[in-house]
Each structure stands twice: as structure tokens, then as C-alpha cells.
């Protein structure tokens, strides 16, 4: 070619490259907004369908087995059951998770820490339904279903979450504070308990809140551990307890629109709890990171 094309005004080739770039940028932007859009659509449709049935009765009354006439009924037993089961699960998982994290970060040799962390991440990837079958085989086949069996199953899902979250925050505590404490003659365990841990309380609470939010909505581990329940209200974890996620699961497969209304209302409560807990935990995490002086 005799005419000199400046590289900046662009011939056909550059124009095509720019066009491809613009198309790709547009697609990426579209993808991000599609994902946000799905979340928004889901939350709105749950809120729209469940909002109307959210009365005080919904939280305080028991379900009616068959209601041909519109009787107001609630899921009090399911709320109680979920509360008890998740509470017990947290009581099991919190100490084990935090202690495991302390071992990983403060005591374990490098190689051992690598393997333990790997095992925790793999445990985190075990499907919840398999954990349900495990607890079924270990406990339920002998003693029958119980809230405790369900708590055990949920705690297995919580341990890796709490341990990894705690370890991450422990790793953020500056090495110099540990060294300062040890240099003053303070023993190692006092250093961990009195100097390191207090700085990580925020992070541990955050991790635990996220784990609670995650397992409160878990249904799969409950199917084989705490599903055969009546519509009675009780607090005893030694018997099977009704739970909110399982109620939603059962109602969602029912042909009765009245059941669907209950399912939507329960879903609204669950999604509200989970999202609020995640948002609060995130805000808290940002704050405790700032306190530890880490800017990301």
C-alpha cells in the first residue's frame, strides 16, 4: 500500500479488533448483571408470594394436616426445630472448628498444616446428601431419627467453614505481637489464649455466622436424620424435630396452593435470615480486618 495509514486512526483491521473488544466487554457486563438480576428476581418473587402469609400466626401456630377450609396455620414447630438443631450443631462445631484452626496456625508443622487444611477443604466439598447418608448409617440405623443426629450432620458441614474462617483471621494477626508476648516471658499457650485469640473474636463470630446461615437452609442432611415428624411442638432433640427447610421441601412438592403459600412464607423467612446474616457478617468482617490494620 502506498498510502500510509496511521496506526491510530485505524484501518479495517483495527476497527474489527476494537469491535471485538467492545462486544466482549458488553458480554462480560451483561453476564454480571444477569447474575445480579437472577438474585433480584428470586428475592422479589419470594417476597411477593410469601409476604402476604407472614402473620404472627405463622410463627406461633402449628400446621393443619388437611385444611379444605382456609384455616390460618403456622410452622411454629419447624421454627423451633430448626433453632434447636442448628443451635446444637453450632455448639458442636464451634469449639472443634476454632481449636482446629489454632492447631493449623499456631502449632502444626508446615507439611501437617498443608494436609490438614487440604482435608478440611475436601470435607467442605463432600456433598451434603452424602453426609446425611453417613449419619444415617452411623446413628439412625441403630437408634432412629433424632434432632441430635441432624445436628451432628450439620456440624460436619460447619466444622470446615468455621475452621478455615478462623484460620484466615489468625493468619492476619501480626507475628510481632506474638513475638512481643513471648519475649516478655509469657508462655506459648497464654500468648495464644490471651494475646492472639482476643484479636480474632470478630473474625470467629463472622465465620460462625456465615456457617450458621449456610446450614440453616440445608435440607439434604435432614432428609435421613430428622424427617419423620408429626405436627406436634416439642423441644426435645432426642426425637426427630420438624425443620423449616424440610417443610419448604415437602410443601413445594404438594399440589395444594395453600401449601405453596406456606412454603413461600417459610422461604421468605429463611432467605431473609440467610441474606441478613451474610450481609451483617460481611460488614463485621470488613470492620475486624480494618482493626487488624489490613487493607485489601
Amino acid at each position, binding site marked *: 500500500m502506498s498510502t500510509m495509514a496511521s496506526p491510530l486512526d485505524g484501518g479495517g483491521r483495527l476497527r474489527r479488533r476494537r469491535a471485538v473488544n467492545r462486544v466482549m466487554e458488553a458480554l462480560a457486563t451483561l453476564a454480571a448483571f444477569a447474575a445480579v438480576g437472577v438474585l433480584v428476581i*428470586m428475592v422479589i418473587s419470594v417476597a411477593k408470594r410469601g409476604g402476604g402469609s407472614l402473620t404472627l400466626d405463622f410463627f406461633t401456630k402449628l400446621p393443619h394436616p388437611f385444611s379444605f377450609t382456609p384455616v390460618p396455620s403456622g410452622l411454629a414447630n419447624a421454627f423451633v426445630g430448626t433453632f434447636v438443631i442448628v443451635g446444637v450443631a453450632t455448639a458442636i462445631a464451634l469449639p472443634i472448628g476454632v481449636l482446629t484452626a489454632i492447631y493449623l496456625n499456631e502449632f502444626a508443622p508446615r507439611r501437617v498444616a498443608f494436609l490438614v487444611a487440604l482435608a478440611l477443604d475436601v470435607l467442605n466439598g*463432600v456433598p451434603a446428601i452424602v453426609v446425611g447418608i453417613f449419619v444415617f448409617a452411623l446413628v439412625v440405623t441403630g437408634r432412629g431419627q433424632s434432632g441430635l443426629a441432624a445436628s451432628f450432620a450439620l456440624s460436619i458441614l460447619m466444622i470446615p467453614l468455621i475452621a478455615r474462617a478462623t484460620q484466615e483471621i489468625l493468619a492476619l494477626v501480626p507475628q510481632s505481637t506474638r513475638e512481643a508476648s513471648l519475649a516478655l516471658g509469657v508462655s506459648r*499457650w497464654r500468648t495464644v489464649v490471651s494475646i492472639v485469640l482476643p484479636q480474632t473474636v470478630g473474625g470467629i463470630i463472622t465465620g460462625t455466622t456465615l456457617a450458621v446461615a449456610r446450614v440453616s437452609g440445608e435440607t439434604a442432611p435432614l432428609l435421613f436424620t430428622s424427617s419423620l415428624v408429626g405436627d406436634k411442638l416439642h423441644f426435645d432433640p432426642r426425637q426427630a424435630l420438624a425443620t423449616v427447610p424440610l417443610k419448604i421441601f415437602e410443601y413445594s412438592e404438594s399440589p395444594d396452593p395453600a401449601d405453596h403459600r406456606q412454603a413461600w412464607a417459610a422461604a421468605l423467612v429463611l432467605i431473609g435470615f440467610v441474606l441478613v446474616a451474610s450481609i451483617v457478617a460481611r460488614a463485621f468482617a470488613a470492620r475486624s480486618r480494618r482493626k487488624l490494620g489490613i487493607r485489601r
Partner: protein
Amino acid sequence: MSSIATQAARAADLRRRGRFRPGDVALHGLTLAAALAAVSLLFLIAWKVTDQALPAIHDFGLHFLTTKTWDPGTRQVFGAAAFLFGTAVTSIGALLIAGPLSIAIALFLTELAPRWLRGPVGALVEMLAAVPSVVIGLWGILVMGPVVADHVEPFLKRTFGFVPLFGGDPSIFGLLPAILVLTIMITPIVSSVSRELFLGVPRDLKEGALALGTTRWEMIRGVVFPYARSGIAAALILGLGRAVGEAIAVTQVIGGNVAIHWSLFKPGDTLASRIASQYQGASSAKQVSAIAYLAVILLCFSLLANVAAQVIVRRFAGRHPVAR
């Protein structure tokens, strides 16, 4: 005045105390015990689930994988072939949609979005992962299902009806709704892992490419993708593992059916959804054992996928320390 002897004794005493402190040993032991308990759970799960499945493993052996019958009636013949097929179709289908989508989201969050938008959009995408699967399933049946049956599937049939995948009658329950639900569930995970990877790509490489006159997309293709290649593979494997293991939402929308067919519109079952749907119905010891056999297959796959993905991620992180 202390003599040399007492000074030496004090030094020895200090040294001894430095070596042995009951509190240190106690805390070390306690935390080690907790770590061992957590790790042993993994082995305990593998052992107990396999133990429960032993009768079925003994009866059916590896033929279980190729038998497509699931007859809890008088014949008591069980096989996983139909569910393996359903699992493969739904999870690969979900990955085909969620993979590119997630990578695009991660690119938007790391390269394109204005800084003030990155935090909120990233958090919202991760919120999607927090929505309980039973709620996604409820939404899938009652909101997404009718839309899929009335609009999406007829459209696919009209346009691509010659492909066997899109033949058959539109229905609310089927493999396609399961694929869509799984896509929603794995996109947040794959995109958040990819985002971390893209954040780790050194700035000087990216700026070097841009300075050579590449467009942003060419820079991404030439620098970001090759740099993060193995990490992206790990993210996709993690997503696949999640899709294969998801039980509840899939059970709600897939319809429950023991069949192998090419139409995405027809109902089917995955390994996980078959296990979940049997929770009230196991009538014989043999059936319980066959259900555990399904769980063994699921567990094997998820262990393989997760170990592979985690090892890749760790090697990647070791080679390219994420600079922040």
C-alpha cells in the same frame, strides 16, 4: 550474692521451663485432638458409607454402574446407569453455561467495572451462593418451571428441534430445569474463585500488553487467560463437583424418572436426587444398601474432584503468590 553454681542452676531451671510447660502441651494436645477429629471425619464418612453399601456392592458389583433398572418392588434389582447419565447431562450442561458466564463475571469484576461498582456487584453475586438450595428449588418449580415449559422449551424446539436434545414435549419438570437451577447454584462459586485468580495476574504483564497496543480483550486473551489457565480449570472442577453433589433443588425440578433418553425436556434423575427422593421410601435392607452405593459413587467423584481442584489451586497459589 549468688554463686556461680546457683546461677547455673537458675539457667538450667529456665531452660527446663522453656522446654516443658504443661499449659503449652495441654493446648497443643487439645488443638491436635480437634484437628484429628475433623480430619478423621473424612475417613469415617468414607468407611461408614461404604460399609452401609457393602451388601449392594457384593450383590451387584460393578454391574451396578451399567444396570439401568431401579426396581424396589418384587425383583429388587438396582442399578445406577440412568442416574449416572442424568448426573452427567445436568452437571456438564450446567458447567457449559456457568463456566463462560462465571469467567465473564470475574472479568467484569476485575478488569471492567469501575472501582466503586466492584465491591457491591461482587457481594451480590456471592449472595446468590447463600440462597438455600430448597428455596432455589421452590422458585424453580413454581416460577421458573412454567416459564421454561411455556416459552423456553417451545422456542428451543421450534429453532433447534432437529437436534435430539431439544425434541420431546415441553414440561415443567425435566433435565433442562435441573441444568438451569444448577447453573444458578454454581455460577457464584466458579466466578468468585476465578476472580481471585484474575486478581493475582501481575499488573506489569497486563500493562505491558496494553502498552504494546492490544485491546483490553486481546490483553485478557493473551495475558490473563494463559496466566490463570490451571486455576480456571480448578475453578471449573470445583463447580462440577458442586453440581454433581447438589441434591435438593435438583430433586425438586428434575421430575424423578429412571430412564436414559436424549431429550432435555423429559424428566430424569441424578445420583444425588435419586438418593434424596428415596428418603421416605426405602422398604428393604437391599434398597437402603443400594442407596448407600449411590452415595459411595457420589463420594468417590466428589473426593477426586475436590482433591484435584484443591491441589491445583494450591500449586497455583504457591507459584504465583497473590500480590495485594
